[in-house]
């Protein structure tokens, strides 16, 4: 009760200067929006340009055609929707699993004390730092071997690609989450233990709900990263029906000469829609007030 009164007084005190104080926020947001939209406008313009070129001769579009979008859906060599499905499935699976794995690891590093803890953290950081573009060769050979034994998770399969993505995700996610987890007060853990909770119970029943906003951010970042990844995927996914959107669209611009940017722009724009939708739907969690709710209780 006392808390609430003081809070409302605080808000009242802060309210009057806020109106002009808010103006800078809008100005800044609009400036960034102009900066953000400019190339996106060019992308949109390219997607409607039937000649399939990137550079435009004027800022205002002179040609308009749906041809590029049609090329995505009417061509049986371009199973666009299958690609989108593959991308969504792969990205969701990677996001979910890697968040779980990363959260568990971060929890262990943050809350538990064990031998090799500090060393483990440093090793995690170092492993992320390694320039891994040569690792591709090693991973490729590994997946080839796995393919000879178990084709469904070897070279050329979405499952195999998923495992490789997961391999790298722990390092990134553990570091990402550890900082946030450290800021969750220890008293919560201690209170739970006094009530007789075991460590897994503390993890699942106390920590997990509290960390949901952060986990949502991590899942979103992982989802977007997987969705847009094409270097590894283009090496691994050869079968046209197994490809992700990023790889599938490559075929329009992948030739040494003679690139066709129109369908590529159209396809990328359409693919951005699920990502933006995902972000919008996760906004509630990302900006959540759940942290505050737990403390008051």
């Amino acid at each position, binding site marked *: 009760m006392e808390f609430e009164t*003081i809070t409302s007084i*605080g808000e009242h005190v802060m309210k009057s200067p*806020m109106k002009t104080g*808010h103006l800078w926020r809008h100005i*800044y*947001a609009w400036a960034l929006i102009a900066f*953000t939209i400019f*190339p996106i406008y060019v992308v949109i313009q390219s997607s409607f340009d039937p000649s399939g070129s990137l*550079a*435009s*001769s004027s*800022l205002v579009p002179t040609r308009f055609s749906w041809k590029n979008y049609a090329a995505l859906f009417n061509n049986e060599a371009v199973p666009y929707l299958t690609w989108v499905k593959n991308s969504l499935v792969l990205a969701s699976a990677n996001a979910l699993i890697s968040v779980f*794995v990363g959260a*568990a*690891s971060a929890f*262990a590093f943050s809350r538990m004390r064990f031998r090799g*803890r*500090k060393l483990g953290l*440093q090793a*995690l*950081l*170092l*492993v*992320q*730092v*390694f*320039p891994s*573009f*040569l690792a*591709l*060769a090693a*991973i490729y050979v*590994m997946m080839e*071997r796995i393919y000879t*034994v*178990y084709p469904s998770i070897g070279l050329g399969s979405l499952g195999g690609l998923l*495992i490789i993505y997961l391999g790298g*995700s*722990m390092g990134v996610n*553990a570091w*990402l989450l550890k900082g*946030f987890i*450290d*800021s969750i*007060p220890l008293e919560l853990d201690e209170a739970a233990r006094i*009530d007789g*909770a075991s*460590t897994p*119970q503390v993890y699942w*029943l106390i920590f997990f709900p509290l960390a949901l*906003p952060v986990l949502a951010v991590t899942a979103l*970042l992982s989802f*977007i990263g997987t969705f847009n990844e094409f270097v590894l995927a283009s090496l691994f996914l050869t079968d046209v029906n197994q490809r992700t959107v990023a790889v599938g*669209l490559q075929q329009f*611009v992948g030739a040494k000469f003679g690139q066709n940017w129109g369908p590529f722009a159209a396809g990328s724009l359409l693919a951005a829609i699920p990502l933006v939708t995902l*972000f*919008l739907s996760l906004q509630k969690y*990302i*900006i959540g007030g759940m*942290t505050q709710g737990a403390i008051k209780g």
Partner: protein
Amino acid sequence: MIRFAGFTGTPALLLKMAVIAISDAILVSMLFAALAKDQNAMAGVIAAILLIINFVYFSKRTMPFKFLAPGIILLITFVVVPVIYTVLMSGFTYQTGNEISKKDALIQLIDSGITADAENTSFDTVIGKVDGNLAALATNQTTGEVGIATEKSYTPLSSEQFTRNEYGVAETANGFVRLSDTEAADADSALSTIKFPLGNGYFLSPQGLDVAVRVTQSLVYDEASDTIKNLIEGTTFKDNNRGNFANIENPDQKLEPGWRAYNNFENYLNLFRDPVVRGPFLKVFVWTFIFAITTVIMMFGVGLLLAIAMDKKIRFRRFYRSILILPYAIPSFMTILIWAGMFNRQYGAVNLLLGHQVDWLNSAILAKLIILVVNLWLGFPYFYLISSGALQAIPAELEEAASIDGASPRQIMQRIKMPLLLQILAPLLIASFAFNFNNFNIVYLLTGGGPTNVLAGETAGATDILITYTYKTAFGSTQQNLGLACAISMIMFIIVGALSMWSLRRSRVLENM
């Protein structure tokens, strides 16, 4: 009070056992499959994983590892192993011409160590069997002569001993049983190495199931002395311990293909000895460093300011957020190339907007500038996301308590929020620095590392960072030097790793945990 009823005891235990049983089942069947295909290394790895999982999840004393196990297993298999591979390869001669194993190289050398005769005599052949042994019914493509070649001898046939088809190729002969197509295909491996002697040291070498050529073996391998002799020219080639068979008299003349060979980490020495590689190294390293630091500061600044701006419930906030996440949502491969097109001198959108033909891509300073600007465009949404997450993680009563004490919003921001923010985000900033130190995509796709003043002898461009420079040096289109690339990667890793560790220590993030 928080209750813990419901998920303890038997149901939880049964669930745990079921999960482990299923994982074990999958791993065991993979183990059998691996052993069945003679992949012993893989079988060993699977067995190790099996043991670790069961030990960790059944033992009482391994609580932290129950949380860490999946992550560590994945990390070691797919990240640590390739790293070890790179480290190992940096000590090998591993380049175009030296890529396969010595055993494979030998097979290749001997197989291709054949020389066709002067007239390039070739035959149309039918594969079959004579007395149960593989044989070829051969029709000379130029003279039309027909004969049967077996592994023992070649017997010319007279016209009543065979019949020709409508193309003049002999199809059947006495004592010759033709193989069906599937039988011939099954005998492919045997046939590709078989030699049907034709006399004078020449033999028939099948080049497909219906064509063969008359060749002689010019290269022979002597296992005892590990040398190859060229019978026609009389030269001898010996293993030069650097991955090739080299002419004893003229070591520069090498037989190709060579193989991957251990070279005492000579790649590192060459790095410092070869002026083409060493020269620009310092210049590129300095720019890489400056770029990584500057871009992280820029992105963090813009993103953090946005997070602070969006921290209050202003109007249109949802709209702003949805738009400003777009650079992150659209594939960067495409947006970077769009930006590159926009900076085109004559037709780019940027110059159209400015009304002036600025040569962005050909000026060293401007090129560096646009790399920073485009990277900012790509990265600020990420920093906005993590900053807003961090702002949320700061408990609200801190701010309330401070404002009760009379602090102004600015003081709250400076003294309370910022230090906490930095503490939470420090590891991420360091990780972002490391990421941008190796940010291949932005440089390669936007400027290609240029502009390079080629005619002045420069080999590195004005915007080249270490990783793009390494890539271009090591992965030229016809000459790749992967051993050297591994060596440069190791050096880069040591530098960046040391820097990251040092800054980690400095920020005292580890101590506070």
